[in-house]
């Protein structure tokens, strides 16, 4: 499990960085062509959509790294089993949220799959919407691994008593 999660995070981070780079290049091409007086119409959409992919991939990675901003006052006050319980509880809430993102993300992708890009009509909007369920699913995997980890720690403490 640990190995898989680690690999998943690595792959997802790479996808995010690749998308960020595409986004970056598209913006540069847009600026350059504007000053050369040539109009390349697809740069705006390519930049926007790769940006969306990169942000959602980054969001999931940061769930795995537990780096989204939160108040840890209560968490820091607690110790031992109470602390693990709170962790498990919070991760379960996030898990449910991610499940909802996955479920309704699939519904949105399904609904808008055949919409086309304005500048590149052969590209489908589905490729963009897919980023939502992918984020939901990967967050679920990361959170499940956190919950399992905390449960194990929980049992260890139980046994130590």
């Amino acid at each position, binding site marked *: 499990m640990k190995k898989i999660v680690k690999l998943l995070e690595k792959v997802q981070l790479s996808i995010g960085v690749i998308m960020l780079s595409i986004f970056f290049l598209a913006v540069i091409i847009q600026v350059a062509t504007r000053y050369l007086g040539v109009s390349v119409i697809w740069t705006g959409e390519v930049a926007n959509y790769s940006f969306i992919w990169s942000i959602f991939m980054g969001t999931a990675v940061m769930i795995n790294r537990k780096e989204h901003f939160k108040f840890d006052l209560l968490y820091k006050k607690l110790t031992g089993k109470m602390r693990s319980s709170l962790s498990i509880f919070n991760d379960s809430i996030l898990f449910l949220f991610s499940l909802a993102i996955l479920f309704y993300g699939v519904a949105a992708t399904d609904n808008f799959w055949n919409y086309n890009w*304005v500048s590149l009509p052969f590209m489908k909007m589905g490729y963009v919407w897919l980023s939502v369920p992918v984020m939901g699913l990967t967050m679920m995997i990361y959170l499940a691994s956190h919950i399992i980890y905390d449960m194990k720690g929980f049992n260890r403490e139980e046994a130590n008593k």
Partner: protein
Amino acid sequence: ACGNEESGEESNSEDGNQGTSANEEESIKIVAAHNQTSPENPYQDGLLEFKEVAESKSNGSIEVEVHAGTLGTSESELVESLQLGGADVVLVSPGFMSSTGIREIDLFALPYLFESYEHWEEAVDGEVGDEIANIILEESDNKFKLMGYWSAGVRHYYGKEPIQSIDDLQGMTIRTQTSGVVADFWQQVGAVPTDVAWGELYQALQQNVVDSAENAYPYFVQENHHQTDNGKYTSETAHDFTTRFLLINNEKFESYSEEQQNIVLEAAAASVEAERQALYDQEEESKQTLLDDGAEVNEIDTAPFIDIAVPLQDEVAEEIGVAHLLEQIREQR
């Protein structure tokens, strides 16, 4: 919202729940939205009239909630909401509808398609309008029902010098669409289509970033573009009598009782009247404001512009399969 989320084909049964179990008195709520935040915009007059008529005629069995830009200021968001059921009645322009894959709609984006509001009304309220409505319903898999045609005004050129002939436009940068048939048109006229965000346009005209722009009086006068150095001279090119679609989510519509359906359609017809009247009035008021503020307006012979537009119209209409509609519109002149 339980149960309504799948607005795919399979969800007919779920929506049917509401429809079949509904007795004549079951009350419904309609969320109606446009993308303009200004309360003075004609869109708001139109949707408020829709609300007024629907609520009064139904004795309260229909409730209408009007959103002025609060469900999204971009029209593509409104189309998405309409498809998903987040909004029931929305107002969109042809450009944003065509991203749903209904290409025929681009017909209304053609420059110099109409020569006057009378001509425009005759076309959209007649057979051409009916056929487009059918196309929208069919190609959206029975999701979008068109209830009427609104307008966002007639668009004119405005820039740093009055335009007397096409020659005056050579090399002028103009803020307009930078892709599609509109861009092609301005390019063939000799101008340089340039991308500037609407919110930045006032400064861009003020600071000589673009030489000119094009829009309808109520829109650019409200933003004070006519008081900038590069927005002072309006030349009435009248290149676009704009068309907007008043759409309803057809699955919701079918779930209403027959009486409610009739009331909704009646309200839509009233809203069409109200919106157009408000727009026509505002167009005159805005033009007067512009003149009072010391900006200038000149008329211009549009024949050379039309000569450029016609082949473009033919080409695009052929490509999107509406050549017969284009012919019909031309015959209605």
